[in-house]
């Protein structure tokens, strides 16, 4: 049985108030919603489902689990980081992931999470890249959050950050956002059960979102980094 202090620690690190820097990224939601004339009608549920099932479950979740299992072996984490870099084809998503990871590392260094300072140093020295999924996986392991808990935290944060972005962009109201979140949680629970092998590759199939992000680079004002 998970101890009560571990459950509370999970709440703390899954909380949107935790300064992780994730609020700056919409994973293409802003880009898609602003280019409906070219990409077709934007539907928040379809977008959310595609992001969770066809990206998070087969890519981000894999990186988190593999990082978690490396048990703070920093050199092995740097190798995994390089694999995440090679596997993230969209440049804005790749750059965003590194920025987000560095933000998270900085916060954890300041609150004294084990290994955060050492790995941040490696990123600064160019010995590691600091992708957010790798950083989450190993830091949450260092905080003694179980692998399953780490996966569910990541899934929840991915979904919640998208619905929050939708609210900030005025696409849905706060109550509707919670309805979408309620609907996606069972999907996260289901896809997070799929087993992950030792060197499982990262895979993603979100071509419409990636094209939206690419086209977004040419547009003017925007709220989110990607």
């Amino acid at each position, binding site marked *: 049985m998970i101890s009560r202090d571990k459950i509370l620690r999970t709440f703390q690190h899954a909380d949107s108030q935790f300064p992780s820097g994730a609020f700056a990224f919409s994973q293409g939601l802003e880009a898609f919603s602003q280019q409906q004339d070219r990409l077709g009608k934007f539907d928040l549920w379809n977008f959310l489902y595609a992001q969770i099932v066809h990206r998070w479950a087969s890519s981000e979740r894999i990186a988190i689990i593999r990082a978690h299992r490396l048990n703070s072996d920093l050199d092995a984490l740097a190798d995994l980081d390089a694999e995440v870099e090679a596997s993230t084809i969209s440049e804005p998503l790749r750059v965003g992931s590194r920025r987000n990871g560095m933000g998270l590392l900085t916060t954890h260094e300041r609150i004294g999470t084990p290994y955060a300072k050492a790995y941040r140093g490696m990123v600064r020295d160019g010995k590691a890249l600091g992708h957010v999924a790798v950083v989450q996986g190993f830091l949450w392991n260092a905080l003694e959050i179980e692998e399953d808990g780490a996966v569910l935290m990541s899934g929840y944060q991915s979904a919640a950050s998208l619905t929050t972005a939708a609210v900030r962009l005025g696409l849905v109201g706060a109550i509707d956002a919670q309805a979408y979140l309620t609907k996606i949680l069972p999907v996260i629970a289901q896809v997070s059960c799929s087993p992950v092998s030792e060197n499982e*590759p990262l895979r*993603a199939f979100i*071509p419409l979102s990636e094209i939206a992000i690419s086209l977004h680079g040419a547009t003017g004002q925007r709220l989110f980094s990607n």
Partner: protein
Amino acid sequence: MNVYWNGKSGPPVEQSVERDRRACFDLSFCRHGDRTILERQYVAYPFHLTRPFTLDPHIPALATIYQQSSSGGVYRSDQLTCQIKMGARTAAHITTQAATLVHDCYGQPAKQSTQIVIEEDAFLGLVPEALVLFPGAEYTTTLDITLHATSVLMVGESFTEHDFTTNLRTFEKYRSDTVVRDPTGRLLVREGFEIRGEDFASATTPIGHFTIVSNFLLLGNRARLPANDTIKNIAARGTDCVVGLSELPNHAGLSIKVLASSAAVTRTVTDDLFSAVVQSAFGKIPQKRRK
């Protein structure tokens, strides 16, 4: 499951190792004067090869190969292997004459594994026509590339589904894994995806209202690859399609993703991209390939 001509079915046929070894398309190119020639070839059923063509008199180094199939597509349990070696200063365009059909696999997936080795100052355009995934098709393609930094490689894949039975059945699964390394073995790019037919055809499909997906990687020497503006101009010309362009990790080149609503649009964009890549690498526009 094995389905016979009279509609009866039986247990799956065991895949023999012997058959695996035979289904290959193995080509090795070398430079001879100002031309690229086939140094070695081993092509076995279901693959078929006539001979290399020189379709561009003003680019004599560029050989064109039509990879053909004498079987009518990809079938259950097919284990196809391709090996392509481009020697120093060689250039080739390998394509197919028409779309490749992937038939119902009845639970016995088919696979194609391709290995490409490209030595210095070489050029390869591996741009087959689209895969058409029939109901029940289950297909995995893997592509392992070793690329010298001075060379240029364009690889493309396109796929769509077609329910010819109109029974509202779709393909089972399509998986694609591409790994690009430099000659020292350093990982540059690893792109993979897997999509089930039911997700491809659902309301929540990650391709929106489009029907054909294309992925292109333009890899290698950035100075010999088309400028981003050239690709954006090609994208802007296309109607009924959207095109996304991104710099690949590790300065490996460019990723181009295309979603289109018709095969004709996909072919036009593919041809235009190939033409731009050849023009950028050789300074001359290639002839249009007749298919």
